[in-house]
């Protein structure tokens, strides 16, 4: 049972505050609001990474998640399931994103009336009532005020196809970040549905280039702007096999270790034809999650050839050669070096090398000379690891593909269907 829900900006401004369960007489309005300040003091008392997810003040427990640079907090006096509360807060953030278009302090500020309305329907007396957009859409009256298409490339959001907007076959990256309820408004006519295959890659490559760990967490996510829901059929690779034990084919058998589906997905054609049947409701939802450990079907996308040497007395030479092992595009591109930047971050004791674009099959190298006072030969052991964060568009490392996307013929009007693939680096570490 939730006592309060509030959303704070990173600076501690109260954006949304709703309290469900403060027993009257004991607490007046102000007293209960103090708990927000108590929470903010606790959360800022520790440096960025240290804040525990659950904090307690007297008999009140705060559970918070961070999304979009905001604190989403629920407080409770009972001892509920942490999974429920955390997933609910994540869902609240996702719904806010669905309804407001994007997730930021600004969009929450501009749409606070809408968010209150959402919360009012989602939670009553501290009990979760519903979080389904199908039900919520009947009750939500306030229209979203959408901010200007956001310019900041937020890493936590899936910014898709950032570079290739000029091609007409590809939806612009902001296409999916608009409010789902822009009904009766101007650009409402767009009956769009986006099906995204998103994979998070976590790789550890040992010091001699040995692949020590490779791990894919993938999901198929639907973002639906269709006003009415009708059945949709999603066809995956027919040769997809599930489970470690199954015999692998010779060539391009696509395999995942295990997968789980949203409870609304009908699987009667999955076993034979690998077809998922789902009636997507408005907004974003994950229809399938899958994971694959160790045996990746392809080589890791990036290889690094490092060398670390001691130069003069106090100087380290770090030579990094980075190669992208993805298949090259039809025309190989020269790497434009002026866009690259490198920066020494003394606070984190790190070197940051930024590469805006990196075509498949290309190779890049960099030489860093670092002066270190009191350098000894043992200190060279302390160099590394290299950690890469990247986003690969149109690419899945597991090889999972969507063969087709069919909407039931009852669907009125034209609908646009988009299928997008993207791979993120969850953690891509290369030891030196």
């Amino acid at each position, binding site marked *: 049972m939730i006592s309060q829900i509030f959303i704070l900006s990173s600076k501690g401004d109260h954006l949304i505050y709703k309290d469900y369960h403060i027993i009257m007489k004991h607490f007046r309005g102000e007293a209960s609001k103090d708990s927000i300040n108590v929470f903010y003091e606790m959360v800022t008392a520790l440096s960025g990474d240290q804040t525990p997810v659950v904090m307690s003040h007297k008999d009140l427990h705060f559970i918070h998640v961070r999304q979009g640079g905001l604190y989403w907090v629920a407080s409770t006096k009972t*001892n509920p*399931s942490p999974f*429920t509360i955390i997933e609910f807060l994540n869902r609240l953030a996702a719904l806010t994103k669905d309804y407001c278009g994007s997730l930021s302090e600004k969009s929450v500020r501009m749409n606070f009336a809408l968010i209150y*309305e959402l919360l009012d329907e989602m939670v009553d007396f501290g*009990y979760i009532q519903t979080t389904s957009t199908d039900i919520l859409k009947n009750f939500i009256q306030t229209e979203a005020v959408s901010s200007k298409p956001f310019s900041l490339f937020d890493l936590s959001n899936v910014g898709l196809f950032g570079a290739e907007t000029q091609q007409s076959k590809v939806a612009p990256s902001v296409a999916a970040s608009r409010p789902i309820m822009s009904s009766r408004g101007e650009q409402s006519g767009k009956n769009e549905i986006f099906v995204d295959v998103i994979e998070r890659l976590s790789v550890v490559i040992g010091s001699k280039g040995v692949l020590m760990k490779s791990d894919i967490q993938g999901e198929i996510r639907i973002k639906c702007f269709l006003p009415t829901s009708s059945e949709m059929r999603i066809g995956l690779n027919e040769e997809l096999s599930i489970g470690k034990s199954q015999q692998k084919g010779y060539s391009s058998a696509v395999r995942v270790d295990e997968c789980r589906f949203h409870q609304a997905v009908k699987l009667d054609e999955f076993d034979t034809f690998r077809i998922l049947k789902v009636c997507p409701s408005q907004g974003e939802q994950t229809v399938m999650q899958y994971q694959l450990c160790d045996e990746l079907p392809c080589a890791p996308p990036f290889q690094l050839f490092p060398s670390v040497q001691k130069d003069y007395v106090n100087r380290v030479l770090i030579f990094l050669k980075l190669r992208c092992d993805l298949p090259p595009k039809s025309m190989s591109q020269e790497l434009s070096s002026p866009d690259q930047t490198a920066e020494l971050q003394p606070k984190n004791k790190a070197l940051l090398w930024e590469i805006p674009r990196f075509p498949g099959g290309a190779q890049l190298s960099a030489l860093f000379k670092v002066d270190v006072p009191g350098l000894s030969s043992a200190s060279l052991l302390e160099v590394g690891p290299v950690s890469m964060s990247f986003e690969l568009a149109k690419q899945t490392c597991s090889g999972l593909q969507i063969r087709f996307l069919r909407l039931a013929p009852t669907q009125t009007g034209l609908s646009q269907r988009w299928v997008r693939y993207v791979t993120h680096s969850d953690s891509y570490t290369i030891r030196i």
Partner: protein
Amino acid sequence: MPYFGSEEMVKELKRALSNPNVQADRLRYKNYITKVIRYMTQGLDVSALFMDMVKASATVDIAQKKLVYLYMCTYASDKPDLALLAINTLRKDCADPNPMVRGLALRNMCNFRMPGMTEYIEQPIVAGLRDKASYVRRVAVLGCAKMHSLQPNTDIDGTIVNELYALLRDPDPVVVVNCLRALEEILKDEGGVVINKPIAHHLLNRMKDLDSWAQSEVLTFLLRYRPRSDDELFDILSLLDSFLQSAHAHVAVATLRLFLQLASAHPAVQADALLCTSAPLLATCGAASRELRFAGLCHVQQVMRSQPGLFGTHYKRFFCGYSEPTYIKFRKMEILVELVNDENVALVLEELRSYCTDVSPELAQAAIAAIGRIAQTYSEKCLDILTGLLALKQDHITSAVIQMFRDLVWFCPQSTAAVCQTVEACVDSPQDSEALLWLLGEHGDQISSAPYVMEGYIDGLKTELSSAVKMELLTASVKMFLCRPAETQDMLGRLLHYCIEEESDVCVRDRALLCYRLLQRGVEETRKVVTGPKSDPSMSVLTGRQEEPISQWASTFNTLGPLSGCDLCPQTAVISAADQPSSSAEKELLPESTDVTLSSPDDTEEEISLSLGPPLSHETFEKMWLDLEILQRQTMGFPRPRTALDTLQAALQLVKIQTLAFTPGATVPWKAYIYTRSTGTLILAELLQGDQHAPGIDESLVVSVKQQPVNQHAIRGFVSILKGVLQTLNVDSS
């Protein structure tokens, strides 16, 4: 609230809201209302506008209505007289043909927190319970709970309770779950909603219609249902089987908890359930949301307390990601330590090794500690890594490594030689570390450069600030003197002189005097006192992996407990290894007597003598404790002494009762294991406070005694001595 010019703002808003021109323009009017709510959220007191807002509630615009209701719910308790004015509008809305308006009005009317509301809301709620729209029924059902919370001390209305029980059969799933929640609140004093067989089976059959939130909540309610027979139990479990693999982590975990509880008599079923859930649990450990990851990791840790092998093959999932927050990395390292086995040890160590050079010193030290713990099983491989780290000559790394060396020598004597060799090679620069001094003192005979390192410390004594280091230095020097007198004599003299003549810290001075007088009594006497055991391999049994029964943690599974670290289950802490050698000096100087004789206050004719005898290893104790029957269980009638646990331990030692292990100070339930010998029998006892199974006597200490061979006379004596000691301590501390 400290907002500058807030009064001006409120006045301005009031003017605007009461302006007929504004009221006529719907959009402008709504804009001002929105503004009021914005200020309210920011913490500004806008209660002065209540009258104007009540007027604004009479509108057909539902969005505006919602905003005004939000305002009214917030301030109703401050302005109860004005809030009454709004009730008329609300009651009219409760009869609106539109179910959305009805539900909205009813919900908000129930949210008014002011006295005397009950008479206004009772009738609409009862009507709402029979509404044809499920939306209104949902609101009305929770309204019953709200009504009850307005007047918590009044009698429970039986008709409403019966109506709610009847509504458990409602076709709408949310109404069903809301009924459970409302009944739980209303019947809180009577132990909550009753889940009998028909209700349980009804809920189980409805599970598929519920959404994930309701599912996990119903699963939690089902925890209190006990199936009558095994057949029924297995029917339930097979019905719930598919939920173990749910895509929603909270459902999977809630199902697992129910499985663990229902099948508590069937360990095989429990193991199967754990195996089934390991996939979703592992998936949450890699979830995109880091908070969810953390929750997943904490619960994996709980599962591993009983099934350490379950995740052994998935060890790579617990490798730390580069950008993960520290609290996740710490948990992952703890898990890695637990799941090490012969196959994965090499890779796990290589991974941990790479964390040791992390930029964050805390992380690096934690990684070293993790390697140190693995070293208790795989000492050779770990020693190589730890030795390699010393070459980096980073202070925080070196001191952490030396501490690990000390623990390693204490737990695994077989690694002493290797450690001494390494220490020999690395200690050219003195580290500010008690651990190093302990190592030097204890194993000085194997480290050839030990006296010279120690001399460095003694020369730098004037600048040394920590008195703990000075005391350790004293003990270590005396020990060193015993094994290498020629090299140590001179500097020991200087050390003692300085500490006795110039030192201002009383503790250090006393320790120095103690050493001095000991030495006066002769070398043999000193040796007897100063040298304690050099290691205690049996200790590692308690720190090492022990498979706990699932029931130990099942009750806190899927609660906040595992995440917040508080209200943890009792965890037996071992008396720190480092305390042992240095404190042995004081213990031995207690009045010389081999057997303490105490006359028990109750039976004057009975006399009993206790003795320590050879120390009992933890394995033997545990084995005997499990084998023997409890001969006597007695409630002491007073809580455990509020003194420090060291004091308790020392006091028990005085009467020749040895403390084996105890839980750290603040934990509940608190436990201690003690043993002693008396005229040919061995007495084992457990002290327990705050037993969950016997809530009535939680303030009092309960002692359970086992004995081999049985001798009732000795037990009576033992209990009375124990009672005497504890009472004395209680008097002292109060």
